[in-house]
């Protein structure tokens, strides 16, 4: 028999039911010692559920779960952690007002009643140097970048001596390219030490780079496990969505030669934005590339009137406008879709309809009385147009998948008839299928005469969508590229300029 690598974790025929839903249907998963195993699937495919069973969050499931060769049934996160499974969640679970050291050792400050920060700091310093993270143990977590905070969280996970399996749930979602690169190096080092890593990501390019094997899930079912070195991205995508995606050839979306300028921004300044000027032409998709924290979102918030600008002028259709509140921006036809749709874009506890018609109530009411009939018909129209998967208009938005939530946000703006739409990270945390639909939707908007700004940290997305690319770094615009000359390397070079 060929010497197989030792399986450290094995799950067989896992079934999990939620009220009225079969969340996992005979799922299998094996993890070998010292491998990086990617877990992919569209949102709602069951990755999170599987991970939650792995880590003891869900305790009621059917099926067999072997860890280090023993049959186990974890009764809680703590049990799983003691056995050697640590998880770093997509949303960071850290205390912002505590120091790095306090965060790492939270819950394990000391064996007695009193604890000394000095000892904690020493222990943390050792761990941090082992991991080669450039932070001080005494630094407050809120002062760290997302990337550094993530590293600290991984360091925390690894500070449990028993840890044999590390689960990273979309660790790169909020990271810039260089931070991701850093993370991969750390993952590589851990693998060499014999740690097994489960890596959940929507970015297939990363998976091809870093993972050994990849397991694909779809609709709660196990589809296949492939060796990464033997397969292509297209194969994985096909397995994930069960159909083929036709890549459109790269082309300008038909901006006319002398299209008028719809938006001009000159010398915009604030604490995080340093003298930014640019123009947006009619019918154009203007990409904003740059690392996370380079000031792209801040520029848009200034234009949209959410933050106060120190100086600078905004011209809409050639006329100088004062924008002091989002209400003014909307009046001049500018809409903004935030990168954090749960915080800034949606009312999660309210229905699909309430969310879509929110900005349009004045349009859909008479003498302050809302016309339910009009609201309903507009909502139905948008659900159909955007192919939002929802039971009906009363469905609470919280229960929709990320992609469908994003469509609800888009629907909200379509109903408003904006001329200029600013998409901030339109596909963050969204699965491949829905991503394609959103791209198609953006192209369609352009054909209808809208002008669009897209902010994205995903370079393939920028290159694929934009007609022209502005690159930002540290609050400044460091370059402007026409799509005919833009490629990922060029953008990256500009984005990392000081």
């Amino acid at each position: 028999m060929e010497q197989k690598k030792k399986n450290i974790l094995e799950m067989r025929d896992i079934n999990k039911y939620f009220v009225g839903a079969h969340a996992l249907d005979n799922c299998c998963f094996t993890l070998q010692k010292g491998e990086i195993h990617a877990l992919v699937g569209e949102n709602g495919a069951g990755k999170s559920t599987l991970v939650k069973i792995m880590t003891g969050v869900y305790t009621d499931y059917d099926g067999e779960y072997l860890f280090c060769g023993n049959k186990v049934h974890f009764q809680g996160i703590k049990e799983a952690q003691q056995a050697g499974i640590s998880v770093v969640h997509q949303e960071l679970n850290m205390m912002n007002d505590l120091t790095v050291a306090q965060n790492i050792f939270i819950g394990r400050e000391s064996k007695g009643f009193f604890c000394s920060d000095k000892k904690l700091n020493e222990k943390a310093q050792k761990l941090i140097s082992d991991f080669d993270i450039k932070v001080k143990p005494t630094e407050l977590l809120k002062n760290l970048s997302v990337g550094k905070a993530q590293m600290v969280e991984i360091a925390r996970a690894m500070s449990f001596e028993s840890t044999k399996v590390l689960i990273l749930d979309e660790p790169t979602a909020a990271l810039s390219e260089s931070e991701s690169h850093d993370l991969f190096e750390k993952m590589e080092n851990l693998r060499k030490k014999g740690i097994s890593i489960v890596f959940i990501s929507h970015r297939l390019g990363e998976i091809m780079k870093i993972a050994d094997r990849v397991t694909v899930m779809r609709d709660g079912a196990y589809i296949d496990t492939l060796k990464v070195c033997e397969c292509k991205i297209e194969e994985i995508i096909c397995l994930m969505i069960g159909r083929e995606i036709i890549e459109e050839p790269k082309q300008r979306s038909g901006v006319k030669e002398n299209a008028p300028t719809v938006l001009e921004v000159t010398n915009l300044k604030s604490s995080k934005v340093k003298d930014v000027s640019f123009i947006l032409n009619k019918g154009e998709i203007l990409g904003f590339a740059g690392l996370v924290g380079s000031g792209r979102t801040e520029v848009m918030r200034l234009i949209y009137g959410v933050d106060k600008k120190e100086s600078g002028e905004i011209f809409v259709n050639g006329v100088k406008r004062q924008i002091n509140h989002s209400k003014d921006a909307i009046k001049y036809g500018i809409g903004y879709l935030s990168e954090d749709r749960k915080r800034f874009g949606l009312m999660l506890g309210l229905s699909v309809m309430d969310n879509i018609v929110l900005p349009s109530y004045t349009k859909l009411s008479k003498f302050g009385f809302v016309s339910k009939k009009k609201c309903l018909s507009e909502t139905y129209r948008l659900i159909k147009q955007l192919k939002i998967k929802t039971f009906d208009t009363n469905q609470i938005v919280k229960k929709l998948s990320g992609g469908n939530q994003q469509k609800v946000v888009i629907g909200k703006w379509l109903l408003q008839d904006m001329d200029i739409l600013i998409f901030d990270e339109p596909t963050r945390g969204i699965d491949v299928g829905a991503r394609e639909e959103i791209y198609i939707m953006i192209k369609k908007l352009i054909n209808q005469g809208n002008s669009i700004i897209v902010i994205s940290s995903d370079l393939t997305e920028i290159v694929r969508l934009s007609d022209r690319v502005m690159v930002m770094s540290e609050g400044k615009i460091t370059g402007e590229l026409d799509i005919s000359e833009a490629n990922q390397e060029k953008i990256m070079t500009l984005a990392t300029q000081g």
Partner: protein
Amino acid sequence: MNKGERVNQFMKGEGLQKLIAVLALIILYMFFSFFGKYFLTVDTFISILDSSYYIGFLSIGATFVIIAGGIDLSSGTVMVGSALIGGVAYNVWGLPIALSLGIVMLSALIFGAINGLLVGKIGLPPFIATLGIQFISLGYCSVIAKVQTQTYPSLISKDGWFKQFVYKNEGFPMGIIWLILFFIIAWVILNKTVLGRYTYAIGSNEEAVELTGIKSNNWKILVYIVNGFFCGLAGIIYAATYSTITPQTGNGQEMYAIAACVIGGTSLSGGIGSLSGTILGVFVISVLKTGLLSMGLPVQWQQVLIGVVVILAVLMDVIRMKNLKRFSLT
């Protein structure tokens, strides 16, 4: 969405809490019918109604504020304080009773507007702003009354017509008619108007509302003014029901209002709630108050039991929120 789905969603929302409120009401009523003295009489029924008027109006106002994600700790003292000033206007300044009642409304509206400005314009947390106004209204209105108890005209006197009009007409409880009328008006505002939709939206996610081009702060001010209006109505009916208004009282009454909202399924985290639930909560409280009296227990037991009921209701709210969260993770 099929029927099962719909029922499911209903039960996960405030529906379950409403159902429990109805059950609680029935069980309490049956309990007191067995164990209370003279509970199953017309007189007792009417006194249950009587004690529900001012709590009812306060609770309607509180429902708006709580759904918008706020809280009002001043409604009890604003109600009593405004009634006190109305009494001063009638007794001391010698104004006609109708005008004095107008002054009750005006005073409550002004306090409502101040609450609104403190929360909406200055940006204080509602808890602190309204706690401040609780003390201010309690003290200031007593100062105006020179700490004298104010008495409203009795039923049989010349100016007693207002009592017949708003409170009781030859034994018929007029108050319930006004409560129903203003319940309907409030329901229409909350469910059919832009103000109502914004109230839910702001309570659900204010940042998102703000980014949608809606000046949420201005709408919040309006919500507190609506609340002030209902505090004023509560003040009028309070004056009609109890006639003598003592300075430095009224604090604590707002807790009944907040309790009624929560019992009826309005979430303290905002964005969720209904007026029908609130009215159920109001009757749970007034049945409890009246029933305990009929059992001959001292008044202090009311406070203990209502405290228990509030904690249970908030507990249900917390559990419900947790369930919603867990469901969304799948």
